[in-house]
Structures are given as structure tokens and as C-alpha cells.
């Protein structure tokens, strides 16, 4: 079997870091090949080189045995290489057909294109309406748009970057069905993921990257998820242990909360009602864009609601702003680290001050108590193992995992009674993620109530006492996490649109 795409000695260095160091491997025709690695292992740089977005410093690629060096994505597409991006490369305010036309060379006119979209989407079971506005579509539907856009160009090779991170388990099944069908028709697929169970189910070969180097190859069916994870991380992993305990009184109560989203493509909250108790960790699952951001804003106090809709220890707080809620013991850590949870160009000391000023008493007559603030920042850095030269470095200079540890640590050190966190381990390496999860569990063991909003179902099942699912702005009744299966959660997500054609 001759390889369809063969990489040899690809190297790419950025100032201070070698993103790829002599990476070589082959992908055969029709093969589904997994590229495994942690965040920062160099997966993204590698696929960007294959797709012509980045040029390698040295090394060569061959496609069908011929030299292949795309200068830009256009050239890559012309050679039959297509890519579905991790963060969707779609335009919200344009229609499906317009979005697809933008991703094609020589797009046919609208009527023709519409016809072809319907044909291709029918053939692979990817139902989409070409005339709809992309901003109104669900994450799963958006991904279909991306895939159809690739398929319309008859690719020989399809690159998929973390395709399942935004899908319900049922949507993942549909996607795998499509990918297997493509593979049978001879299209090779380079599949990038860190979800090892999926790779075991789908891929024939895997190449593992760590710190820019190929550290191993394997046949996923013959490995366990744990053995592959350890190859990825290069050390044995420990998972935090969950102790199930009896819960105390209700600390946070939501009564019939409605909230109109201020984002034109956002989801409004409908009738959210739940109680969160002392010592309880409640997980809120669901696909992104189903009201998670709005729920977070309502709880943090950035969006106000009728006073009685949110009660903290029996007091109405729905109409109070963030600082008033902080004083009463409700602390939050939003999803977006840079720009929401932390100000990118400010130092860690300044960022520590931003949310800690009230509870830590860091001001005097309107002046910042510099020494006390720096001490608080240093305490966060030491207790949460934030790797940074010092408190005067900017938030921007920290890696994702370290900044997330800082953001979470900043809130936890303020001893919250209720702690709400959105996507605590998104884009964080495995070791940091484990640290963050144990910190959350420890907080709950000490009597705080914790609400974790996350799209990572494995994470929710690992740390939650109860799990509820947010779907189109409504929250399901919480269910005990013990004994629940991924399939049951998938059904709670409203994964009813599973259809095989």
C-alpha cells in the first residue's frame, strides 16, 4: 500500500518553542488516522502545515508520491486536502449556502449550489437547509455545514480538528457513521482528538505527539484509553477521588428564572428552577450555546433578573450586581479566561485585585493596598501551583492551564459559600485539569455549594453529585450522577434528531 500523504522530518519553530520537531508519519488511502496529544503538543501546528496555513521550517510532504508544499489553503484545497476546524470557521450572519460558497474554489451559482448541497447532505445523512442563517443553527448543524463544504470538493483527505467537542453523544454517532462511509469510499481522514474512547472506536492507526515530537504510534483497538493517555502525557495519571457525602441546607435557590438573551444568536433561559445545597457539586451539562453563557451571566450578576428569581441563603439577590453578590458569598469563574475572567494585559496582582478587592479587603479610602494585594496574588500562585516567574507578569503571558488555575484559585481562596464555574478545564492540559478538579472537590467537602457548567461529560460524571442538562434554555431536573450512563445523558440533551439515511 503506498501512502496517500507522507510527512517526513517536518519542523516548525516559534520564538522560544519548537512546535514540531522532525515529525514523520504516513497516511494510507481510506485510512482513518488519529493524531493524539495534549494541548500544546503541536497538533494544530502540524495540521496547519498540511493545510497550507503555516509553512514548515524544514522537512517535506508528499501527496500521492509527489512533492506537496501548499503555499496557502487554496492550494491545499486544489490538491484535495480539506479541513474541518476546531473552532468553526463559519460566518453567523451569512446563509448556509453563502458559507459553503466561501469555502469553495469556483463556486457554482446559487441555484446550482443549493441543489448540490441538498444532494450531498442527503447522501451522507447530514440534513441541512441551505437557506438558513448559520447563526441560528445548533453546534451539530454547524459542523454539518463545514463537512458538506469539504465534501462538495471531493477531497482525497479530510482533516478533522477536535470535531466532537461540541456534539451530543448521539450526534457523535451520526458523525462517525459519515466518516466510516467516507473512508470506505477511499477518502483518508486525519482525526485529531484527545477523547481516547472515540479514537478507539473510530481510528485504525494513531500517532502520538508530545512537546512537538512523535513519541509513539499504536493501533488504538489494541490499547486501553489509559495506556494511550499515559503515552500522551508521558507519566502515570492519577484521578481525583470523589467522596459522596450527605448534603446540608439549600444555599442557592433559583425560582422560575426567565432571561432574555442579549446576544442575537444567544439562547434565552426559560423557567430555570433548582436548589444547590451545602457540600453539593452540581454539574450542568449540555452542548455549548444552549444557554450556558446566559445562566452564567444571570448567576454572576452581570445580567439582572427579578429579585426573587435567585435566592442566596434565603435572601433575594436577583437584582444585585456582581460585587454585592461577592460580598454575600457567591463567587463565579466565567469560561473565557482572557478578557472575561482576567484582563489580558494586566498583571496577576491587578487581576487578583479585580475580584478579590471586596472580600479580601484590599482597598483603603479608595486606594489599593498594594502589599496586601501582592500577598494575595502570591498566595494564589503558591497554593494552586501556578507556573509563572512572579506576580508582576501579565495574565496574557501565562499558558491556558496556568491562567485557569490562577482564576479558579483566586475565587477559591476567597472562601466562597457558593461557587459557580463555567468550563473549568476547557483547553487545559491533563495534569492541570486534575488539579483543578481536586480543588473543586475539596471546596465542596469543606461545605461550599458548587455549580459546574461543562460540556465535558466525563468531567461532570467524575466530580458531580447531581447532573442536570441545559437544552435550548431549559434545565432538566437534576439526577444523581452515580450510576448514570453517557447514553442517558445524551437522551437528556434532547439528542432526538439522530437519523441515519
Amino acid at each position, binding site marked *: 500500500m503506498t501512502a496517500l500523504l507522507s510527512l517526513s522530518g517536518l519542523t516548525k519553530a516559534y520564538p522560544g518553542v519548537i512546535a514540531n520537531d522532525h515529525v514523520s508519519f504516513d497516511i494510507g488511502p481510506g485510512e482513518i488516522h488519529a493524531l493524539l496529544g495534549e494541548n500544546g503538543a503541536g497538533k494544530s501546528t502540524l495540521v496547519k502545515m498540511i493545510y497550507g*496555513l503555516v509553512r514548515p521550517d524544514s522537512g517535506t510532504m508528499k501527496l500521492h508520491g509527489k512533492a506537496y508544499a501548499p503555499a496557502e489553503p487554496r492550494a491545499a484545497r486544489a490538491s484535495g486536502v480539506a479541513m474541518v476546524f476546531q473552532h468553526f470557521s463559519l460566518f453567523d450572519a*451569512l446563509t448556509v449556502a453563502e458559507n459553503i460558497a*466561501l469555502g469553495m474554489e469556483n463556486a457554482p451559482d446559487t441555484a446550482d449550489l443549493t441543489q448540490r448541497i441538498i444532494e450531498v447532505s442527503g447522501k451522507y445523512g447530514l440534513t441541512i437547509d441551505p437557506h438558513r442563517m448559520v447563526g441560528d443553527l445548533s453546534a451539530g448543524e454547524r459542523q454539518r455545514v463545514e463537512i458538506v463544504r469539504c465534501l462538495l470538493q471531493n477531497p482525497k483527505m479530510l482533516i478533522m480538528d477536535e470535531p466532537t467537542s461540541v456534539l451530543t453523544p448521539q450526534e457523535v454517532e451520526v458523525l462517525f457513521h459519515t466518516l466510516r462511509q467516507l473512508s470506505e469510499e477511499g477518502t483518508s481522514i486525519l482525526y485529531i482528538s484527545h477523547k481516547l474512547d472515540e479514537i478507539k472506536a473510530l481510528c485504525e492507526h494513531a500517532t502520538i505527539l508530545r512537546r512537538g515530537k512523535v513519541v509513539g504510534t499504536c493501533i488504538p483497538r489494541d490499547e486501553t484509553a489509559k495506556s494511550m493517555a499515559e503515552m500522551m502525557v508521558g507519566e502515570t495519571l492519577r484521578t481525583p477521588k470523589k467522596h459522596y457525602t450527605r448534603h446540608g441546607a439549600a444555599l442557592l435557590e433559583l425560582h422560575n428564572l426567565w432571561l432574555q438573551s442579549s446576544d442575537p444568536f444567544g439562547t434565552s433561559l426559560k423557567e430555570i428552577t433548582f436548589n444547590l445545597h451545602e457540600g453539593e457539586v452540581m454539574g450542568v451539562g449540555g452542548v455549548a450555546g444552549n444557554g450556558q453563557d446566559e445562566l452564567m451571566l444571570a448567576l454572576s450578576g452581570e445580567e439582572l433578573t427579578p429579585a426573587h428569581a435567585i435566592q442566596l441563603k434565603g435572601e433575594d439577590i436577583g437584582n444585585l450586581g456582581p460585587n454585592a453578590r461577592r460580598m454575600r458569598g457567591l463567587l463565579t469563574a466565567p469560561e473565557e479566561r482572557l478578557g472575561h475572567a482576567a484582563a489580558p494585559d494586566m498583571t496577576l496582582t491587578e487581576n487578583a485585585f479585580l475580584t478579590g478587592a471586596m472580600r479580601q479587603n484590599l482597598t483603603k479610602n479608595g486606594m489599593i493596598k498594594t502589599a496586601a494585594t501582592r500577598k494575595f496574588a502570591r498566595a494564589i500562585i503558591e497554593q494552586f501551583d501556578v507556573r509563572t516567574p512572579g506576580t508582576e507578569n501579565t495574565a496574557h503571558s501565562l499558558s491556558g492551564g496556568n491562567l485557569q488555575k490562577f482564576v479558579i484559585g483566586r475565587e477559591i481562596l476567597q472562601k466562597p459559600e457558593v461557587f459557580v464555574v463555567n468550563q473549568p478545564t476547557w483547553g487545559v492540559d491533563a495534569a492541570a485539569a486534575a488539579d483543578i478538579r481536586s480543588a473543586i472537590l475539596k471546596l465542596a467537602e469543606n461545605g461550599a455549594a458548587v455549580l459546574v457548567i461543562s460540556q465535558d461529560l466525563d468531567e461532570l460524571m467524575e466530580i458531580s453529585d447531581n447532573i442536570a442538562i441545559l437544552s435550548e434554555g431549559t434545565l432538566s431536573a437534576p439526577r444523581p450522577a452515580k450510576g448514570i450512563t453517557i447514553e442517558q445523558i445524551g437522551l437528556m440533551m434532547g439528542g432526538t434528531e439522530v437519523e441515519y439515511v
Partner: protein
Amino acid sequence: MDFSALSPVSLIVSLMVAATPILIAAIGELVVEKSGVLNLGVEGMMIIGAICGFIVAVETGSPWLGFLAAMAGGAAISFIFAILTQYMLTNQVATGLALTLFGLGFAALLGHSYAGIKPPKFGTLDIPFISDIPVIGPLIFSHDYMIYISLMIVAGVWYFLTRTRGGLVLRAAGENHDAAHALGYKVIRIRIMAILFGGAMAGLGGAYLSLVRVPQWTEGMTAGAGWIALAIVVFASWKPWRIILGAYLFGGITVLQLNLQAAGANIPVAYLSMTPYLVTIIVLVIMSADKKRASLNAPACLGRIFHASN
């Protein structure tokens, strides 16, 4: 007070003349904003166009050459903005304001010796018999050529933005520049071309002021027209046809208040003169009251700096 001087036909004809400079500048700015760039330098580009057009028209005796020179002048000064914001990644708001201040000063310098001169006369459409029909003749068939050209420009921009691939790519760059870049489109090149077009249109609008509407050169003669053009883009929700509506509405109020002043209305002149600006503010407040709708229409990347990440 004498209302008999306010003939509806002559009112409409003069409102079109009053509206055209803003109309042309606004349609140019619409294209710029659709590509995701906020250029607040419209006022400066207009006045540069006004003086460039005026000088060339006076020196050559041809208003047409004057209009061409105005477009070249407007595009040239907008090129400074393009280089600063697209390559040196300066803040678009600050750079746009600087462009306005620079344009006003530089135009005054260029026009120093041209004050008080009459420019060559610009032609109007004159079809035998048809242009002489009462009402319809003056309303439709006897305007100066630039009024017809301005409407054709709006039609052309509408066709380009909604019906051509080039227009789709331009909108895409304004909607999500990272995605457009990932698909391999040259975001910076697209934006520079849009900025140059916007500059040329602002220049043309400015020259219409100095060559047709006024017609002569005085320092600071744009008198806020560029800012009104910016407001009209928002008023039009970034839709080309609505630019006509907004510009003519503004032109209508301007002309009406001028006529009321002439007719000796019993309102202090200061209040009458401020009405067009007041109406602009009121309309903008109403338009942006619905946060959700405003953000739906605006290009999502408007005013955001694009930096290609490797």
C-alpha cells in the same frame, strides 16, 4: 410668515442636491464598514476631495477632471489610514479622528489662494421637451449628472455586495476575519481596497459640495457632513438602499429649515440650524434602542483589529 415661497417641486430638487454629498460619502463608508473597518475620517477625506476637486476644476476648466481628482485625493488620504490601521495595527477610532483633523488642516493649506473663486459650471441633464414637462421634468429629468451617477453608485454597490462573489468575500471579512483568513482570503488586502473605495467616494462627495452645491471653496465647508454620513450608515442598518432614504431625509430637513429661515419663521435661527443634527441623533437613538437588532445588522468584526496569528 410666507409659506408660498415653499414650492414642493423646488423643495424636492434642492433636497436632492443637499443630500447627494452625504449620500456618496455614506455609500463609500458602508463598503468600508462591511469589510469590518470603522473609518471615522470621512469628514477629513471629504474636505480633501472638496479642495482637490476644486483646484483641478479651476485650473483645467473641467469639472469632470475635478471629480476624478477629488476621488484620487480622497483615496490617497485614506491610504494613510489603510497603512496605519492594517499594517501598523493602530486603533481605528483614534486614527480616523486624526485623519479628520489632518484633512481639515491640510485642505485649508491647499485651498489658501482659492477662496472666493467661482468654479467652472457643471452640466445638468437637458433632454429636449422631456426635461420641460411640468413637475416630472424638473423632478426626474433635469438634475445635474452627478445626482444620477450617485444613484447608480448605490445600485452598483448593492449589486456588488449581494450578488457577486467579491461582495460575499468582503462581507465575510467583516463578519469573521479569523474565519475568512483560515479559508485563505486575504483579509488585509480586501480591507485596504474597501478603504480606498471609501476614500474615493468621500472625496467625490466633498467635490460635489465645492463644485455643485455651494459652489465655491471656503475653509471647513463640509461642516459636519462627514459625521452625518457616518450616522446615516448606522441609520441604514448597513443596507445600501436605505442609505438613499437616510441621506434624502437628512437633505430634506436641511432644505426645509433653510427655507423656513428664508421665509422668516418665528423660531430662532439657531434652533432651525440644529434640526438636521438633532434629528440625526434622535434617529440613531431609536435605531440603537433595540440592542439585539442593532448587533444583528452590524458587521460583527467592525472596528476590530485583525492580526493574522501565524
